[in-house]
């Protein structure tokens, strides 16, 4: 087993364990958000192993930096009591949810086919230069739509979180 494979399985184990920690942690929402950071960073490591270098950097900056900090900020702003979500109610619903997840996973695994080995990558694959060229030539309309979407999201979030709309 090569060093890349060892790193991949290590990152994969980190990602799965911390994702489970996020979902199963009913006591502490802050700890759940920090588990989410571990998942994001482990996924960024896997992206590097898959030759997606720029996406890995953006993953760490946007997910590990901005999005989770936003989550933590809201959790701490609302100052939720830790016993507000005691388990016990709607046990049937929980069981059904877990069964649904397992069934979905089983279906995906059953319908998956054996993939061929990955070919060698062309030079510059996944770097900022090639990705930038792709973004600003073939996908320039997508970039413009994304900027419009972000503007709309900022305005919408401001309106929603405002105390009183005059």
């Amino acid at each position: 087993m090569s060093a890349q494979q060892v790193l991949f399985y290590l990152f994969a184990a980190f990602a799965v364990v911390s994702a489970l920690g996020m979902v199963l942690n009913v006591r502490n929402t802050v700890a759940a958000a920090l588990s989410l950071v571990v998942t994001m960073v482990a996924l960024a490591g896997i992206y590097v192993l898959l030759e997606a270098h720029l996406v890995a950097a953006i993953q760490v900056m946007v997910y590990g930096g901005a999005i989770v900090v936003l989550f933590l900020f809201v959790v701490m702003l609302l100052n939720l009591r830790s016993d507000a979500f005691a388990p016990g109610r709607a046990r049937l619903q929980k069981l059904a949810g877990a069964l649904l997840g397992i069934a979905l996973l089983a279906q995906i695994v059953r319908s998956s086919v054996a993939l061929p080995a990955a070919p060698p990558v062309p030079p510059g694959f996944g770097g900022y230069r090639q990705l930038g060229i792709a973004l600003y030539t073939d996908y320039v309309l997508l970039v413009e739509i994304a900027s419009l979407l972000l503007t709309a999201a900022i305005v919408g979030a401001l309106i929603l979180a405002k105390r009183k709309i005059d």
Partner: protein
Amino acid sequence: MIPLDHVILLSAILFGIGVVGVVTRRNLIVVLMSIELMLNAVNLAFIGFNRLWPGQPGQNALDGQVFVLMVITVAAAEVAVGLGIVISMFRNRDSVDIEEVSLLKW
């Protein structure tokens, strides 16, 4: 070389965990986090398949990675709006329990 089957399997596992989180948890913030987890699982599948078909030399095929960047953009927008909704819900109901907002539920 990383076996791509296992990358897709990891993506499926993370997506399954995200689904379970969305369906079973009652804390709206954790539900949003689980949605983020599902989006990340899809991103991982995109990156894995892009690694499988990387294009020829001089003609890189980076469609999967471009799509991942767009998913990250949409996720950021979704979190901003979603947390705005959480804050306004907390202001009105003094709770972030999704059982409290079942007015539109059949």
